[in-house]
């Protein structure tokens, strides 16, 4: 069980970095993206082990990706999409989507519909996780604006704040 988890985490890192290569993420951002994905995936698996259900586990994973990606973007001074798109790849409901297509093609419509609902639930949970992460990032920016004068100086032209 533990060996399986460790293998999965290592493979998640590799998958994220190599997907980053496919969408041409700059070289200096690849490693951080891989670590964000590995940490989020670990938390996702822990949630599943605690029987929270697949929707909440995906939501927590996406929330963590959103928050960590924003920190990485601020630290590395790179656009946030360099980190959150590759990190999201291990959370894609690929298995369910494939079963849906297969069962539609073979004529098992009711089975296909139940897989479609699973895909919708997972995709919705991920989208909602990103939304919550956005909220967190806004709150953090507001708080930093109040507390740090250096931050205020650096972001004085940011129209969003």
């Amino acid at each position, binding site marked *: 069980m533990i060996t399986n988890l460790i293998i999965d985490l290592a493979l998640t890192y590799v998958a994220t970095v190599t997907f980053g290569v496919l969408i041409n993420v700059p070289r200096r951002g690849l490693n951080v993206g891989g670590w964000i994905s590995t940490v989020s995936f670990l938390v996702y698996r822990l949630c599943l082990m605690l029987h929270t259900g697949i929707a909440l586990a995906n939501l927590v994973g996406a929330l963590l990706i959103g928050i960590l990606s924003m920190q990485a973007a601020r630290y590395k001074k790179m656009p946030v999409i360099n980190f959150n798109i590759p990190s999201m790849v291990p959370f894609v409901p690929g298995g369910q989507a*494939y079963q849906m297509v297969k069962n539609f093609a073979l004529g098992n419509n009711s089975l296909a519909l139940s897989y479609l609902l699973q895909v919708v639930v997972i995709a919705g949970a991920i989208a909602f996780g990103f939304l919550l992460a956005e909220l967190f990032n806004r709150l953090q920016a507001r708080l930093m604006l109040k507390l740090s004068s250096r931050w205020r100086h650096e972001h004085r032209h940011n129209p969003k704040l």
Partner: protein
Amino acid sequence: MTTGQGHLMIKTALHAGRIMIENGSEVARVEDTIHRIAINAGYPDSKVYVTITGMMMSISGEENAQIEPVASRSIDLEKITQVNDLSRQFAAGTIDLPQFEQQLTALEAHPRYFPFWLQLISAGLVSGTLEVVFRHNLPDFGITCLIGLVGWAIFYGVNRVARVRFLSEFLAAVGIGALAIWFVNLHLGNSVDDIIIGSVMPLVPGVPLTNAVRDILAGDLVSGIARGIEALMSAIAIGSGIAMILQVL
């Protein structure tokens, strides 16, 4: 009449915006970057309207609006990052407006990609690793890597000739499905399902999907829906390719 400086500023800002949209940036980021360029060039009161097929910009109170159409779209996060870096340098004052414009042109003329062999190996590794993560089927790791690699090669090759993303995705999915069934019939792999699930992962439209959600959440409804349709079309192209092969064979 407008000054030459204002004219150059709008031209540069729209050029930067076009590069970002063409390579898969979300709309809010483009608007933000264009506003920053305008503020740093000394025009705090500018108006800009950005969609994923074109953008318009003017300085308030002057007759100088310009339009920039966006004809092609692909995915290249490196270029978005470089435009971001140039914008930061411009804000810090290390480059001026003519240099900025010149560097944007140079950036478009000399794109920096990973070498093709590295992309192929990466596509193979994405397929194999995700097959194991999703399905826990370790014996099929190698064969999934191989088929994912071939699938990406088909996608890349057709995209070069035809320049229609959906067609390349469809043909790559057909190739992946056919190869997976063939290899399992030859007893080189165990599960057709697992091999196909892994091999189509490099083709998944992750960038349009994420951007669609972000655009809609940010209130850019027109661009968000357009991108959502783009992602949906990709998913349908991949799905119908696989479905066709499963029905035929």
